[in-house]
Protein backbone atom coordinates (compact mmCIF):
# COMPACT_ATOMS: atom_id res chain seq x y z
CA UNK A 1 0.00 0.00 0.00
CA UNK A 2 1.41 3.36 -0.98
CA UNK A 3 1.57 6.45 1.18
CA UNK A 4 1.39 9.79 -0.59
CA UNK A 5 1.44 13.18 1.08
CA UNK A 6 1.06 16.86 0.31
CA UNK A 7 1.66 19.86 2.54
CA UNK A 8 1.13 23.51 1.66
CA UNK A 9 0.65 27.01 3.05
CA UNK A 10 -2.40 29.14 2.37
CA UNK A 11 -2.67 32.88 2.92
CA UNK A 12 -5.67 34.15 4.93
CA UNK A 13 -7.89 35.11 2.06
CA UNK A 14 -11.49 34.65 1.00
CA UNK A 15 -10.32 32.86 -2.12
CA UNK A 16 -8.28 30.31 -0.12
CA UNK A 17 -11.05 27.65 -0.04
CA UNK A 18 -11.50 27.70 -3.82
CA UNK A 19 -7.79 27.57 -4.59
CA UNK A 20 -7.30 24.83 -1.97
CA UNK A 21 -10.02 22.77 -3.66
CA UNK A 22 -8.36 23.29 -7.03
CA UNK A 23 -4.96 22.19 -5.73
CA UNK A 24 -6.21 19.19 -3.75
CA UNK A 25 -8.53 17.84 -6.44
CA UNK A 26 -5.53 17.82 -8.81
CA UNK A 27 -3.30 16.12 -6.23
CA UNK A 28 -5.90 13.45 -5.48
CA UNK A 29 -6.31 12.97 -9.23
CA UNK A 30 -2.56 12.49 -9.60
CA UNK A 31 -2.78 9.88 -6.86
CA UNK A 32 -5.44 7.96 -8.76
CA UNK A 33 -8.30 9.03 -6.46
CA UNK A 34 -10.81 10.15 -9.07
CA UNK A 35 -14.27 8.98 -8.02
CA UNK A 36 -16.48 12.00 -8.76
CA UNK A 37 -18.91 11.69 -5.81
CA UNK A 38 -16.13 10.96 -3.34
CA UNK A 39 -14.09 13.92 -4.62
CA UNK A 40 -17.13 16.19 -4.30
CA UNK A 41 -17.56 15.17 -0.66
CA UNK A 42 -13.83 15.52 0.05
CA UNK A 43 -13.79 18.99 -1.54
CA UNK A 44 -16.77 20.02 0.57
CA UNK A 45 -15.00 18.92 3.75
CA UNK A 46 -11.79 20.69 2.70
CA UNK A 47 -13.72 23.85 1.86
CA UNK A 48 -15.38 23.86 5.31
CA UNK A 49 -12.04 23.32 7.07
CA UNK A 50 -10.25 26.07 5.14
CA UNK A 51 -13.18 28.49 5.44
CA UNK A 52 -13.21 27.96 9.21
CA UNK A 53 -9.45 28.47 9.43
CA UNK A 54 -9.73 31.75 7.49
CA UNK A 55 -12.85 32.92 9.36
CA UNK A 56 -12.13 31.84 12.94
CA UNK A 57 -8.52 30.64 13.06
CA UNK A 58 -6.17 33.24 11.71
CA UNK A 59 -2.42 33.04 11.68
CA UNK A 60 -0.73 30.65 9.27
CA UNK A 61 -3.06 28.23 7.50
CA UNK A 62 -1.43 24.95 6.54
CA UNK A 63 -3.08 22.12 4.62
CA UNK A 64 -1.93 18.49 4.78
CA UNK A 65 -3.29 15.70 2.62
CA UNK A 66 -2.30 12.10 3.32
CA UNK A 67 -3.35 9.08 1.29
CA UNK A 68 -2.76 5.56 2.61
CA UNK A 69 -3.86 3.60 -0.41
CA UNK A 70 -7.41 4.85 -0.97
CA UNK A 71 -7.78 6.12 2.61
CA UNK A 72 -7.43 9.91 2.83
CA UNK A 73 -6.96 12.31 5.73
CA UNK A 74 -7.41 16.04 5.16
CA UNK A 75 -5.89 18.34 7.80
CA UNK A 76 -6.06 22.09 8.11
CA UNK A 77 -4.04 23.92 10.74
CA UNK A 78 -4.46 27.50 11.87
CA UNK A 79 -2.95 29.84 14.43
CA UNK A 80 -5.81 29.78 16.96
CA UNK A 81 -5.88 27.28 19.81
CA UNK A 82 -9.68 27.62 20.11
CA UNK A 83 -11.31 24.24 19.51
CA UNK A 84 -14.25 24.28 17.03
CA UNK A 85 -17.58 23.55 18.71
CA UNK A 86 -20.88 22.94 16.93
CA UNK A 87 -23.23 25.89 17.28
CA UNK A 88 -26.87 26.36 16.35
CA UNK A 89 -27.10 27.35 12.68
CA UNK A 90 -28.45 30.76 11.77
CA UNK A 91 -28.29 32.99 8.69
CA UNK A 92 -24.57 33.64 9.16
CA UNK A 93 -23.14 30.22 9.92
CA UNK A 94 -23.15 27.07 11.96
CA UNK A 95 -23.53 24.36 9.31
CA UNK A 96 -19.83 23.68 8.68
CA UNK A 97 -19.26 21.10 11.42
CA UNK A 98 -22.55 19.35 10.56
CA UNK A 99 -21.31 18.89 7.01
CA UNK A 100 -17.85 17.76 8.13
CA UNK A 101 -19.53 15.24 10.44
CA UNK A 102 -21.68 13.84 7.66
CA UNK A 103 -18.96 13.39 5.04
CA UNK A 104 -16.14 12.06 7.24
CA UNK A 105 -15.74 8.82 9.16
CA UNK A 106 -14.33 10.88 12.04
CA UNK A 107 -12.65 14.21 12.73
CA UNK A 108 -10.69 15.52 15.66
CA UNK A 109 -8.52 18.40 16.78
CA UNK A 110 -4.80 18.28 17.57
CA UNK A 111 -2.62 21.01 18.98
CA UNK A 112 -0.22 22.21 16.32
CA UNK A 113 2.60 24.77 16.53
CA UNK A 114 0.90 27.10 19.01
CA UNK A 115 -2.43 26.76 17.21
CA UNK A 116 -4.44 23.69 16.31
CA UNK A 117 -5.03 21.33 13.47
CA UNK A 118 -8.37 19.81 12.50
CA UNK A 119 -7.97 16.36 10.96
CA UNK A 120 -10.79 14.87 8.89
CA UNK A 121 -10.74 11.21 7.86
CA UNK A 122 -12.67 10.48 4.67
CA UNK A 123 -14.25 7.09 3.92
CA UNK A 124 -12.10 5.17 1.40
CA UNK A 125 -12.29 6.41 -2.19
CA UNK A 126 -14.14 3.87 -4.39
CA UNK A 127 -12.42 2.33 -7.41
CA UNK A 128 -8.82 1.40 -8.04
CA UNK A 129 -6.35 3.78 -9.63
CA UNK A 130 -2.64 4.49 -9.60
CA UNK A 131 -0.52 3.69 -6.61
CA UNK A 132 3.04 4.92 -6.18
CA UNK A 133 3.96 2.35 -8.84
CA UNK A 134 1.65 3.97 -11.34
CA UNK A 135 -0.58 2.26 -13.84
CA UNK A 136 -3.71 4.30 -14.51
CA UNK A 137 -3.82 6.19 -17.79
CA UNK A 138 -6.95 8.20 -17.05
CA UNK A 139 -6.54 11.64 -18.50
CA UNK A 140 -6.86 14.62 -16.16
CA UNK A 141 -9.97 16.72 -16.69
Amino acid sequence: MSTLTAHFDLPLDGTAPAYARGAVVALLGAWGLRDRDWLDAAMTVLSELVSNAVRHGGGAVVVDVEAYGRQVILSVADGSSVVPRPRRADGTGGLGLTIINAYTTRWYVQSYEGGKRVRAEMPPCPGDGVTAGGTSRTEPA
Partner: protein
Amino acid sequence: MNITAHRDGDGTARLTLDGDLDMATAGSLDGHVVRALTGERPRQLVIDAAGLSFCDSSGIHALVRARDTAHRHGASFVVSNTTGITRRTLEITGLLGTLTTVSPRVTG
Protein backbone atom coordinates in the same frame (compact mmCIF):
# COMPACT_ATOMS: atom_id res chain seq x y z
CA MET B 1 -19.18 32.02 -10.10
CA ASN B 2 -21.26 33.70 -12.75
CA ILE B 3 -24.71 35.01 -11.85
CA THR B 4 -27.18 36.02 -14.55
CA ALA B 5 -30.39 37.88 -13.72
CA HIS B 6 -33.58 37.44 -15.78
CA ARG B 7 -37.03 38.92 -15.33
CA ASP B 8 -39.92 36.79 -16.63
CA GLY B 9 -43.19 38.34 -17.81
CA ASP B 10 -45.16 36.80 -14.92
CA GLY B 11 -43.32 38.75 -12.22
CA THR B 12 -40.63 36.17 -11.55
CA ALA B 13 -37.07 37.30 -10.92
CA ARG B 14 -34.67 34.51 -11.84
CA LEU B 15 -30.99 34.28 -10.85
CA THR B 16 -29.03 31.63 -12.73
CA LEU B 17 -25.90 30.41 -10.95
CA ASP B 18 -22.90 29.06 -12.81
CA GLY B 19 -19.79 27.83 -10.98
CA ASP B 20 -18.85 27.50 -7.31
CA LEU B 21 -20.76 29.12 -4.45
CA ASP B 22 -18.48 29.48 -1.43
CA MET B 23 -16.88 32.05 0.88
CA ALA B 24 -15.44 33.98 -2.08
CA THR B 25 -18.67 34.22 -4.08
CA ALA B 26 -21.50 34.25 -1.51
CA GLY B 27 -21.31 38.05 -1.22
CA SER B 28 -21.90 38.38 -4.93
CA LEU B 29 -25.11 36.34 -4.60
CA ASP B 30 -26.26 38.59 -1.71
CA GLY B 31 -25.81 41.62 -3.98
CA HIS B 32 -27.70 40.07 -6.89
CA VAL B 33 -30.58 39.05 -4.62
CA VAL B 34 -31.05 42.58 -3.31
CA ARG B 35 -30.91 44.05 -6.84
CA ALA B 36 -33.39 41.45 -8.14
CA LEU B 37 -35.91 42.32 -5.41
CA THR B 38 -35.78 46.09 -5.67
CA GLY B 39 -37.02 48.33 -8.46
CA GLU B 40 -39.82 46.47 -10.26
CA ARG B 41 -40.81 44.25 -7.34
CA PRO B 42 -41.12 40.59 -8.37
CA ARG B 43 -43.79 38.24 -7.01
CA GLN B 44 -41.27 35.40 -6.88
CA LEU B 45 -37.52 34.90 -6.71
CA VAL B 46 -36.19 31.71 -8.35
CA ILE B 47 -32.56 30.70 -7.98
CA ASP B 48 -31.67 28.27 -10.76
CA ALA B 49 -28.91 25.99 -9.47
CA ALA B 50 -28.52 23.79 -12.59
CA GLY B 51 -25.07 25.24 -13.28
CA LEU B 52 -23.97 25.25 -9.64
CA SER B 53 -20.90 22.99 -9.56
CA PHE B 54 -20.08 23.37 -5.88
CA CYS B 55 -21.79 24.72 -2.77
CA ASP B 56 -20.49 24.54 0.79
CA SER B 57 -21.99 25.93 4.02
CA SER B 58 -21.05 29.50 3.04
CA GLY B 59 -23.11 28.94 -0.11
CA ILE B 60 -26.02 27.40 1.76
CA HIS B 61 -26.09 30.31 4.19
CA ALA B 62 -26.25 32.68 1.22
CA LEU B 63 -29.26 30.73 -0.11
CA VAL B 64 -30.94 30.95 3.31
CA ARG B 65 -30.29 34.69 3.38
CA ALA B 66 -31.71 34.98 -0.15
CA ARG B 67 -34.90 33.31 1.04
CA ASP B 68 -35.20 35.61 4.06
CA THR B 69 -34.58 38.67 1.88
CA ALA B 70 -37.20 37.53 -0.66
CA HIS B 71 -39.78 37.04 2.08
CA ARG B 72 -38.96 40.43 3.59
CA HIS B 73 -39.64 41.93 0.15
CA GLY B 74 -42.97 40.09 -0.10
CA ALA B 75 -41.75 37.64 -2.76
CA SER B 76 -42.05 33.86 -2.72
CA PHE B 77 -38.80 31.92 -3.02
CA VAL B 78 -37.44 28.67 -4.41
CA VAL B 79 -34.12 27.12 -5.42
CA SER B 80 -34.65 25.01 -8.55
CA ASN B 81 -32.59 22.33 -10.32
CA THR B 82 -30.29 21.34 -7.47
CA THR B 83 -28.12 18.35 -8.40
CA GLY B 84 -25.12 16.35 -7.29
CA ILE B 85 -23.09 17.50 -4.33
CA THR B 86 -25.22 20.62 -3.77
CA ARG B 87 -28.32 18.49 -3.34
CA ARG B 88 -26.52 16.00 -1.08
CA THR B 89 -25.20 18.78 1.14
CA LEU B 90 -28.62 20.45 1.36
CA GLU B 91 -30.06 17.10 2.42
CA ILE B 92 -27.41 16.63 5.10
CA THR B 93 -28.05 20.05 6.58
CA GLY B 94 -31.82 19.45 6.59
CA LEU B 95 -32.44 22.42 4.31
CA LEU B 96 -33.32 20.64 1.06
CA GLY B 97 -37.08 20.85 1.61
CA THR B 98 -36.97 24.38 2.98
CA LEU B 99 -35.07 25.76 0.03
CA THR B 100 -36.34 23.69 -2.89
CA THR B 101 -40.06 23.88 -2.11
CA VAL B 102 -41.70 27.17 -3.08
CA SER B 103 -42.06 29.16 0.10
CA PRO B 104 -45.02 31.53 -0.29
CA ARG B 105 -44.71 35.29 -0.19
CA VAL B 106 -45.65 36.70 3.14
CA THR B 107 -48.47 39.15 2.67
CA GLY B 108 -48.59 41.61 5.54
